[in-house]
C-alpha cells in the first residue's frame, strides 16, 4: 500500500489548535505511508499541484486528506484524483477541522485526537477499492412546487432553457403573496402587475404545464426519474420529473397566537397584510391616530420565533408612509425594537418616513385593549424607561413570516429537512444554499427563511440554474455506494428483502438467493447490517472498513 497523507493547516484554523508538523512527522514513519505532508491550504492551486505531483511521482494508491469536513470540497478533491488517473473512490477525507480543531482548545489534546482520526482514516482506506460512478439517464424535466415569485422565476428560467416544467400551485391562482401586495417596496409597483408579467412569460409555452388548485399526493423514485402523482381538479395525474424545486413560500404570522394583542377581537386592530388587502375601506376619522407595531411574530423567543423576518420593518414603514401621504395631519407612531430596514435604500426610506412625521418609539408593547373611544396601546418606552398608555383609532401589526403551513407534509414527501425554525434547511448555508440533502431537490424563496421579493426571485433563479446543470446532459453520475450480494454466502433467508424499503432486493426462485437491483438501491446499508450470513456488502461502507475504523479509534490495532 502506498498512501499519501496531506494535512491541511487551513491557515490558522487548524494549525492554531493542532500541531500539524508533529502529525506529518509521525505519519511519515508509519508503515504503508509513502508521503506525509502538512500544507497551508491543500485546496489551493499549489496545494492541489503538490498532491497531484505526489500521486504521479510516488505512485500513490490511496490519498488521505486531513482537512475540513468531507462535505466541503468533495468534488474538488475527487476531480483532483481523476486528473491524476487515480480512482476517485480511493480518496479518504478526515475532518480535523469541524471535528477536532474547532471543537477543543488544547493543542496537545487536539493533536492526539487528530492523530487518532487520521489513523482511523488510514486503516479504513486500506480496504477501499476502485469504484465506478454509475451513469443514469435523467429526464430533462422539473417539478416546481409553489407558484409564488420564487417558483415563477425558476419556471421562467427552466422553460427558456428548453426544459419541461411542471408548475404546481395549490391555490386557484398563481402569484403567492405578492399578488395581494400594493405598491411593493422598493419597486413601488403593484404586486399583481409584477405577477402578471411573470405569468405572461410562461403562458403559451409548449414546455410549461401549469397545475393550479393542485397538490402532490405521492412522490417516489430516485434522482433523475422521480415519479410524481398530482391531485388535480380533473383527477389524478402522474408525471416523471428529473428534479424538484420546492418554492412553497411562507405563512403570514397569525397574531392570534399572542392574545395580548387582541387581534381578531376588534376591527380596529389589523395586520400589515389586512392593510394591503383593504386600506381604502378603513373608516378613519379626519386626522387619525395610528399605531404601528414592529416585530409581531418575529424576534420573539417566547413563541419560538427568534428570527428577524426582514420585511416587516419595511412594511411598517410603508404603512406609515402611505397613511402620511393620505392624511397629512394624522398622528402615526411606530413601536419598534430596532429598525432593520435592511435592503438597499431601506435606511433612506426610514429617514423619509421620519421626515414625513412618523414618530418612532423604542418600546416593548405589553398589551392592546380595544375600548369604546379608541384602542389602548400599553407598553414600556425602553429609551426612557417609562410606562405609557396611548389611545389610537387604528393599530397595524407588522407581522413576520412563518414557515409555510405545508412544511411538515412537504418535508416528509420529499425527505428533506426542516431547520430549527421549521423552514426548509439548505444543505450548507454558505456553500450549498440552494440544495437540500437529497440529490436533485432544491429549495427556493421564502420557504427556506424570510426573504423579500428580490431575494426570493434570485433564490428561485439560482436553484433553477443548479437543477439545469444537473439534468442538462440527459444523464448524470451517481455515487456507486450501493449494496451487492455474495451469491456464495447467501442462504436465501430473505431477511434483507423484508428490510429493504426501496424494494431493491430481488429473490431468485430457481437459485434461491437474492440480488440487488442497482438502479433502485438507495445505499442505506440496512440489508448489510441485517443479513445474518454477512452476504451483503454496502460498497464504500463494507464491514471491514468500519471494523478497522473502530479499532483505530479505540487503539486496539
Amino acid at each position, binding site marked *: 500500500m502506498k498512501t499519501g497523507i496531506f494535512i491541511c493547516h487551513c491557515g490558522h484554523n487548524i494549525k492554531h489548535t493542532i500541531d500539524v508538523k*508533529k502529525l506529518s512527522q*509521525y505519519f511519515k514513519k508509519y508503515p504503508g505511508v509513502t508521503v506525509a505532508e502538512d500544507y497551508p491550504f491543500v485546496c489551493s492551486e499549489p496545494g492541489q499541484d503538490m498532491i497531484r505531483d505526489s500521486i504521479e511521482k510516488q505512485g500513490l494508491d490511496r490519498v488521505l486528506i486531513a482537512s475540513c*469536513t*468531507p*462535505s466541503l470540497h468533495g468534488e474538488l478533491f475527487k476531480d483532483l484524483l481523476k486528473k491524476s488517473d487515480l480512482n476517485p473512490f480511493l480518496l479518504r477525507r478526515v*475532518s480535523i*477541522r*469541524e*471535528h*477536532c480543531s*474547532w*471543537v*477543543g*482548545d*488544547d493543542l*496537545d*489534546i*487536539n*493533536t*492526539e*485526537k487528530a*492523530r*487518532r*482520526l487520521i489513523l*482511523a482514516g488510514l486503516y479504513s482506506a486500506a480496504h477501499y477499492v476502485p469504484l465506478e460512478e454509475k451513469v443514469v439517464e435523467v429526464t430533462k424535466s422539473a417539478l416546481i412546487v409553489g407558484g409564488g415569485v420564487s417558483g415563477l422565476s425558476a419556471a421562467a428560467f427552466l422553460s427558456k432553457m428548453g426544459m419541461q416544467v411542471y408548475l404546481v400551485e395549490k391555490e386557484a391562482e398563481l402569484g403567492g403573496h405578492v399578488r395581494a401586495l400594493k405598491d411593493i417596496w422598493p419597486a413601488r409597483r403593484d404586486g399583481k402587475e409584477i405577477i402578471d408579467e411573470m405569468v405572461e412569460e410562461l403562458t403559451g409555452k409548449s414546455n410549461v404545464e401549469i397545475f393550479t388548485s393542485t397538490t402532490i399526493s405521492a412522490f417516489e423514485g430516485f434522482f433523475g426519474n422521480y415519479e410524481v402523482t398530482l391531485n388535480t381538479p380533473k383527477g389524478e395525474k402522474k408525471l416523471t420529473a428529473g428534479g424538484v424545486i420546492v418554492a412553497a413560500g411562507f405563512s403570514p404570522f397569525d397574531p392570534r397566537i399572542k392574545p395580548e394583542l387582541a387581534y381578531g377581537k376588534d376591527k380596529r386592530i389589523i395586520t400589515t397584510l389586512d392593510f394591503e388587502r383593504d386600506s381604502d375601506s378603513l373608516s378613519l376619522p379626519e386626522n387619525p391616530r395610528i399605531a404601528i407595531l414592529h416585530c409581531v411574530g418575529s424576534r420573539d423567543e417566547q413563541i419560538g420565533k427568534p428570527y428577524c423576518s426582514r420585511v416587516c420593518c419595511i412594511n411598517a414603514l410603508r404603512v406609515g408612509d402611505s397613511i402620511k401621504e393620505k392624511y397629512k395631519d394624522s398622528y402615526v407612531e411606530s413601536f419598534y425594537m430596532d429598525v432593520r430596514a435592511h435592503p438597499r435604500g431601506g435606511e433612506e426610506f426610514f429617514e423619509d418616513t421620519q421626515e414625513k412625521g412618523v414618530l418612532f418609539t423604542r418600546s416593548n408593547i405589553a398589551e392592546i385593549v380595544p375600548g369604546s373611544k379608541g384602542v389602548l396601546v400599553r407598553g414600556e418606552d425602553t429609551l426612557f424607561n417609562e410606562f405609557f398608555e396611548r389611545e389610537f383609532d387604528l393599530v397595524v401589526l407588522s407581522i413576520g413570516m412563518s414557515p409555510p403551513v405545508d412544511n411538515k407534509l412537504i*418535508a*416528509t414527501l420529499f*425527505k428533506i*429537512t*426542516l*431547520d*430549527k425554525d421549521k423552514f426548509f*434547511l439548505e444543505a450548507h448555508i454558505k456553500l450549498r444554499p440552494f440544495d437540500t*440533502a*437529497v440529490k436533485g431537490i432544491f429549495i427556493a424563496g421564502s420557504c427556506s427563511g424570510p426573504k423579500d421579493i428580490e431575494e426570493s426571485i434570485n433564490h428561485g433563479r439560482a436553484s433553477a440554474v443548479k437543477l439545469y446543470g444537473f439534468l442538462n446532459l440527459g444523464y448524470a453520475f451517481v455515487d456507486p*455506494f450501493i449494496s451487492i450480494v455474495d451469491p456464495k454466502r447467501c442462504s436465501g433467508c430473505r431477511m434483507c428483502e423484508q*428490510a429493504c*424499503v*426501496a424494494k431493491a432486493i430481488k429473490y431468485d426462485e430457481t437459485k434461491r438467493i437474492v440480488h440487488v437491483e442497482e438502479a433502485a438501491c*438507495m*445505499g*442505506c*446499508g*440496512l440489508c*448489510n*447490517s*441485517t443479513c445474518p450470513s454477512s452476504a451483503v456488502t*454496502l460498497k464504500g*461502507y463494507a*464491514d471491514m472498513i*468500519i*471494523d478497522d*475504523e*473502530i*479499532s483505530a*479509534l*479505540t*487503539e*486496539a490495532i
Partner: protein
Amino acid sequence: MVEVTNTKNTEIIGFACSFCTFKASEMAGSLRMKYPDGVKLIQVPCSSRVDPAFVIKAIFEGADGVFVAGCHPGDCHFIKGNYFTRRKMAALKEMFDVFSIKDKLRLFWVSAAEARRFVEKVTGMHNEIKEKKNAE
C-alpha cells in the same frame, strides 16, 4: 504525542448518520461549539447501517461508551431506516443489560439542524460515563 490512554480518558465512539447527526456535528464544529475530545465519530450513510456487531466490537476493544445517532423518527432520508435501528438497538440494550453494561450504549435522534442538541447529547453522555468510571 501525548500519552492519553484509555484508562485516563473517557472514550466514546459515535456512529452518526450522514444526513442528520453527522451534518449537525459539522455545524457544531463550524459554530465552534465545544465538546469533550473523547467523543469520536464514525460516519455511516444511515443509522441502519450500524450492525450491532460494531457496537459490541467497540465496547470490547475498550470504548467507554457507544452511541448510535440518526434522524428523528419519521424523518429518515431512507424512509424507515431509523425504525430498524431503534429495534436493533433496543434488542442489543437488553443483551447489554444482562452484562450490566447497558449504560454504555445510547441511541439518540439529532437532526441536521440541531447542532446544539448534538453537543448537549454527546457532552451529557460523556460526562455521565466519565463520572461513573471515576467512581468505580
